[in-house]
C-alpha cells in the first residue's frame, strides 16, 4: 500500500477545486462546439449570447457556486455579424455597477466597436493570450479587475476549437476571497506553513501571515514545491 504524504494530498485538494471549475468550463466548451457543428460554423452574436446564457446563467444563480461570471469570448472575425464579441455573464454575487432594478445575472456590456476610445483588444490579454499560445487551460490572476468586477479576481480560461482553428475561449471568474475559503482547510491540514502560488509566483493564498496574497514569492523558500495537477499552480511547504 502506498501511503500518500500529507502535502501531496493537499496539492491534490488544491487542484480539485480548480479542476471542478475547469470541468464545468469544459462542458461549456463541448456544448458551444456542438452548437457550432449544428450551425455549420455560422453563428451570430445574438445566437452565441443565447447559447452561452443557457449554459452559464443557471450556474451563476446557484448560491454555493464559486464562479461569479463566465461565458464565451469569440476570436476576431469568427462570428457572422461582428468582429469582436464577449458573450460573458455576470452573476448575482457580482454587483459591479448593477442597479437594483437590473435583471441578475446579466450580460457584460463591453465596447465591441474597434474605432471607439474605450475599445479593448482582448486578444492581447493573458486570459486569451496564454490559452491561444499553448492551446491548454490557464489560470490568470489574482488581480484587481477594475473594469469588470472591481474585486480581487481569478480568471480561468480554455481554448475552443472548430475544424482545427481556435474560435474563442470559454472561461469563468472567481473571487479570490471565495477561493481562499475553499482552499484554507486543506492548506491548514498540512501542519506546516503552506502557500499556494500561481505560475508568476504570485501568492493566491497562504497560511503564513507574513506572506500576503498578491505578493510575489521571489525566492525559493520552502522545503518543497509541489505542482497542483496541471493547473500551473505550485504548493510551497516550509
Amino acid at each position: 500500500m502506498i501511503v500518500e504524504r500529507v502535502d501531496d494530498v493537499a496539492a491534490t485538494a488544491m487542484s480539485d477545486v480548480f479542476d471542478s471549475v475547469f470541468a464545468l468550463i469544459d462542458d461549456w466548451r463541448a456544448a458551444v462546439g456542438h452548437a457550432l457543428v449544428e450551425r455549420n460554423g455560422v453563428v451570430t452574436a445574438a445566437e452565441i449570447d443565447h447559447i452561452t446564457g443557457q449554459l452559464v446563467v443557471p450556474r451563476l444563480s446557484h448560491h454555493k457556486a464559486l464562479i461569479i461570471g463566465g461565458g464565451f469570448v469569440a476570436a476576431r472575425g469568427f462570428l457572422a455579424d461582428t468582429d469582436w464579441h464577449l458573450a460573458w455573464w455576470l452573476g448575482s454575487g457580482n454587483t459591479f455597477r448593477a442597479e437594483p432594478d437590473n435583471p441578475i445575472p446579466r450580460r457584460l456590456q463591453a465596447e465591441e466597436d474597434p474605432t471607439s476610445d474605450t475599445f479593448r483588444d482582448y486578444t492581447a490579454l493573458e486570459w486569451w493570450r496564454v490559452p491561444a499560445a499553448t492551446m491548454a487551460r490557464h489560470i490568470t490572476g489574482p488581480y484587481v479587475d477594475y473594469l469588470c468586477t472591481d474585486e480581487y479576481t481569478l480568471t480561468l480560461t480554455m481554448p475552443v476549437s472548430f475544424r482545427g482553428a481556435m474560435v474563442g475561449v470559454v472561461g469563468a471568474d472567481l473571487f479570490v476571497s471565495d477561493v481562499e475559503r475553499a482552499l484554507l482547510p486543506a492548506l491548514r491540514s498540512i501542519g506546516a506553513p503552506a502557500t499556494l502560488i500561481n505560475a508568476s509566483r504570485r501568492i493566491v493564498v497562504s497560511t503564513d501571515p507574513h506572506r500576503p496574497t498578491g505578493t510575489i514569492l521571489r525566492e525559493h523558500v520552502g522545503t518543497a514545491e509541489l505542482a497542483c495537477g496541471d493547473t500551473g499552480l505550485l504548493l510551497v511547504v516550509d
Partner: protein
Amino acid sequence: MPTPHRPATAARAAVFAPLAGGGRAELVAQRLTDAIELGLLSHGEKLPSEADMARQFGVATVTAREALEALRSRGLVETRRGRDGGSFVTSGAQARSGIAARVEALSRVEIRDMAAYYSAIATMAAELAADRATADDVAHLRELVTATDIESDASSRRGEAAFRLEIAALSQSARLVAEELRLQAEFAPLLWLSLKEQPHRDLSRESHLAVVAAIEEFDGGLARQLTARHIMHSVEWLLEAKG
C-alpha cells in the same frame, strides 16, 4: 475579466466610476463638465445612452437625464435624434472657466487637505506596487508611460489617470483601486491642472519613469517618496496659480 489599460480606457473608467452621496444629478453633471473641460471627453465624442450612463454611475435613469439636460443648457452637449443619434460633446470652451472658479472657491487649507488624502492613497499604492509587481507588470507599466503624448494636454491627463490607476491595480488592493478611482473623479481635475504647462508635462513623464524604475528595483520607499514629491509639486503649482 482582465482588460488592458489603455490610457483612454482608464481615464474613462474614472470619469464614469459610480457616484456616492446626494445631489446626484449635479454630481453627474459636474463630473462630465470637468471631463469635457479637460479634454478627457473630446469634441464630437458620443456619450453613453441615458440607460448606460445610469448603470455606469449607479444612478436612476431620470438622474442621468437630468444631468444631460443641465449639460445641454450649458451648451456642452447636443442631442441628435435618429439612427446615429445620441448625446455628443460639443465643446470644452464654455466650461473653460468652471474649474478656475472651483479653484477660486476652495481655501488653501482645503486644497492642502485634499492633497494629503490623495497622497496617502497614491503613495501607499506605489509602495505596495514595488513589492508586488512582476517583471511583466513593470514592462507593461513602462509601455503605458511612453505611450502618452506629453506634447498634448489631454493625452497627458489621460496618461496621468491611467498611470495612477495602474499603480493602484499593481498594489493588488481592490479598496485602493476603488479609492483611487473615486479621488480621481473628485480631485484630479484640480490636482493635475498643472499639466496644461509643458514643463509640468515633462516633469510628469520624468517622475513616472523614475517610479517605474523604483518599482523594478523593488524599492517601495523610493516609489513612495517620488510619488509624494510629484503630487506636492502639482499642488504647489495650483496654490501659486490660485494666488
